[in-house]
């Protein structure tokens, strides 16, 4: 059929002219927050760009991946959801390595910890969107992850405790030494 192919060819040429050479994605915009302000008769609705607050400097800036930069190698577990939630999407999947900057082994470890956290029910709001009309099961069974070693043998170094503040925010070496000794 000659006519539809001609039409399709014409349309494609139109689109390539619009976006430049190749099939590039439309330009991305930063995340904006919608603000609505009413002053008398005028209502102003504007989108303000959300600026991320300045993060504190990592203790080891020469590290290659975020885990090495913050000296968290071998220090986290599946219960540290505050750390794990930084590497997941809203539906619970992992973010790609080229975006987060993790090295391969840490990316795999974090992926395993995220899986364990999902299984233990620690990330209840990071669920995949269900299709419409889906009736969820009435019962929800709890699952737990048993400790790898009995707690009497190992001292846990969970980050989500008071020690985190000392590790991250206190740069005085004397206090840091005391904190690391206490952790051990």
């Amino acid at each position, binding site marked *: 059929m000659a006519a539809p192919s001609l039409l399709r060819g014409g349309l494609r040429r139109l689109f390539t002219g619009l976006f430049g050479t190749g099939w590039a994605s439309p330009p991305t915009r930063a995340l904006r927050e919608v603000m609505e302000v009413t002053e008398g008769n005028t209502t102003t609705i504007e989108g303000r760009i959300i600026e991320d607050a300045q993060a504190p400097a990592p203790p080891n800036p020469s590290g290659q991946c975020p885990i090495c930069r*913050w000296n968290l190698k071998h220090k986290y577990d599946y219960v540290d959801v505050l750390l794990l939630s930084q590497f997941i*999407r809203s539906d619970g999947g992992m973010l790609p390595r080229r975006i987060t900057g993790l090295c391969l082994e840490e990316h795999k470890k974090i992926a395993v910890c995220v899986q364990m956290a999902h299984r233990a029910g620690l*990330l209840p709001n990071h669920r995949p969107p269900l299709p419409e009309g889906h009736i969820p099961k009435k*019962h929800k069974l709890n699952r737990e992850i048993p400790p790898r070693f009995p707690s009497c043998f190992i001292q846990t170094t969970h980050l989500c405790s008071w020690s985190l503040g000392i590790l991250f925010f206190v740069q005085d070496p004397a206090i840091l030494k005391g904190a690391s000794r206490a952790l051990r």
Partner: protein
Amino acid sequence: MAAAANGPRRPPLHRPSQGSASASRRCGGPGAALPLPSAAAGAAMASYTKAAQQWATFARAWYLLDAKMQPPGKIAAATVMRLEGRHKPIYHALSDCGDHVVIINTRHIAFSGNKWEQKVYSSHTGYPGGFKQVTATQLHLKDPTAIVKLTVYRMLPKNLQRRTMMQRLHLFPDDVIPEDIQNNLLQEIPQPRVVPRRLDEYTPEEIAAFPKVWIPPKDFRRR
């Protein structure tokens, strides 16, 4: 009353440094200045009557245990200790010194691994063709207290006292307890497993205080 409630009366010890007048005084009671540990224990126990001490030692206590997000095996281990009375220094298997245990939230127990799908509870009605096997999930949906009940029953010693001890076990699927049992409760048994905090249980301040370990690029669209 205080003098009568003292420990066993001891003859006064001879203290050569003091005069003969003090040596003739009866020893014992909180007034004595002897640094002996037995005298100190006697002075401490002097605050209870004999009846109160007997009651505290031999009374049957009621304990509470919250089974929320706990593995049923560990729950049963703590329960069986109390039901037998092994947590008491006066324990003897024949003394019937066990206590009552009330377990709440049995509906919210947590199995590890794939036990919800793989653990099988078997029973036989006694009639031919009456062999029934149900998974832990099916049993839990049918009766939310059955798993904990069976676990405790199988962990108790296999003697005639087991049934008596099971009568002293009270299971409730949620945290709704009858008022008369609630009035009897003495102490809560600590949970055997430390339950990790979920992400929605953290306050926004704690989440904001945790540093961001990586900064997304400017054109990153968070989905």
